[in-house]
């Protein structure tokens, strides 16, 4: 039996040079294509790795542009220019108190120069789109950018706009109809930012910290009082 196996093996080994070489070339080519494909797939990483081995940028061209003899002078001049630019930038920070409102996290910071005076939660626009028809709709979002306090009012009265009635399924009354005027719902104070947007109080304190308003900024009673006292007419409000 063993003899038979050996005979079989010998018969196979007669074909060795052709078969084995063919298999060797085939398997090496397959491997070659696989490695090539891996290289192509990882080309960006390999290029990044190769770039890290290159020496860093030369200084010669910059030295030639300035001129080595003028380097000290140019250095001092640039330093002065930077100091001036820094001063100009600092002048953009308000001298008086200012407010920063975060509409993403629904919180605020009352600032003086670069120091935080007070921070707390607030409510900003809900991003709800109230759609009446294709032509008429309102988006309840708090506008972003820099605003100024245009007016400060104690015990404000809310003159309800059209959407306040439509939202409740009511008929929209005439412009100065008594039903438009609501007392107490804006809290004790209001700071006017223009275009109908206000910073005011709320009856729904449990919703503070959530995006629930129609675009105004709502605050809790104590925070609102502090902000009202700290901010003057003309003070800046940054909303992002």
């Amino acid at each position: 039996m063993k003899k038979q196996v050996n005979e079989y093996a010998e018969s196979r080994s007669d074909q060795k040079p052709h078969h084995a070489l063919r298999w060797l070339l085939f398997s090496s080519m397959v491997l070659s294509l696989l490695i090539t494909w891996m290289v192509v797939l990882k080309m960006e990483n390999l290029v990044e790795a190769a770039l890290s081995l290159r020496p860093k940028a030369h200084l010669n061209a910059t030295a030639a542009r300035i001129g080595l003899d003028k380097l000290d002078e140019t250095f001092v001049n640039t330093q002065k220019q930077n100091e001036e630019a820094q001063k100009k930038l600092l002048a953009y920070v308000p001298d008086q108190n200012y407010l920063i409102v975060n509409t993403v996290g629904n919180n605020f910071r009352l600032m003086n120069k670069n120091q935080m005076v007070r921070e707390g939660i607030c409510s900003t626009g809900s991003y709800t789109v109230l759609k009446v028809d294709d032509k008429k709709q309102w988006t309840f979002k708090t506008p972003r950018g820099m605003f100024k306090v245009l007016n400060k009012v104690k015990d404000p009265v809310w003159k309800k706009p059209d959407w306040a009635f439509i939202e409740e399924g009511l008929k929209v009354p005439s412009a100065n109809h008594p039903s438009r005027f609501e007392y107490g719902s804006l809290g004790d104070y209001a700071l006017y930012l223009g275009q109908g947007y206000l910073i005011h109080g709320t009856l729904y304190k449990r919703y503070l910290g959530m995006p629930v308003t129609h675009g105004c900024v709502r605050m809790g009673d104590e925070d609102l009082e502090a902000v009202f006292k700290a901010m003057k007419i003309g003070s800046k409000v940054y909303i992002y």
Partner: protein
Amino acid sequence: MNKNNQFRSDDSGEEISPATSGSLTGLKIFLQYFLRPKTFVLFMVVALLLPILLIVYSIIIPVGRYQAVPWSGLQTDSLQAEVKLSREEKQLVASFIELEKEKIFLNNRLQLAKQDSIYLVLDMKDSTINLEIKGVVVRKNRIIESRMSNRFDLIDHENLIPWLKKPFTLEKALATIPKAPIVVVQAPKDTIEAALQAKKPEPPQTTAVFFTFYFDRNLVLEIDQIDPPDEEDYEQIKDYRRQRKLENHLTFWQKINLVRHADQKMKIRLVVSEDDARSIYRAVPMNTHLILRW
């Protein structure tokens, strides 16, 4: 048992057919043949020739000759300056370059401070990415991890000046979250319908935030949250990564000519907290600007 077809191996006592025995012997012969030094060398040469040629053609030669220019649209002068610098002069020129970069950074901030829009200030030196409005930092975001493309280090300062001279403008963004969480509500017809529509407000979202900003002049900013995402966000993240892959897709020829291609992405990858990532993505407008310093 048919003795012509059935054999018994001496070692294991397991019954094997002539075919199995033959292929095992064939494999043994092949391995013996393969492990001969000459044959092995031949195998390795054939297997590695193509990848090595590709690496030499696509990486070694072009990287060696690479003239780092961040954007093909730049007007760059010839940088063949023959100036020999002493060690002290090199240090002085290097500090001047830093000063000039600072000047560009400050001038860009001054330029954007005059505009009304919210913009980003990416300061790799301070490891911060800040939101600014009219020159006032409204939110400081700490960078937890960062990685910049090695190309940044290779660009000559003279080529860098025109690239950095004005703020970058956002052209496209991909993200796992919508820009604004808009909910459309149809106006109720009467008070009964309004009462039915009234619902409790939902707490702020906590979904995973991963996004990529594509700016002009080849600058790409990838921002990932550090916090591990919830399982329910995996699909969203997978979709975002697929979109990003499509956006960055290169053909085979583009890949093998990657370094030779004039316009290459200048990538910066940042890792920040989920809260910071969400604030950055939601706060900036779609045509926002970015100022860069490193």
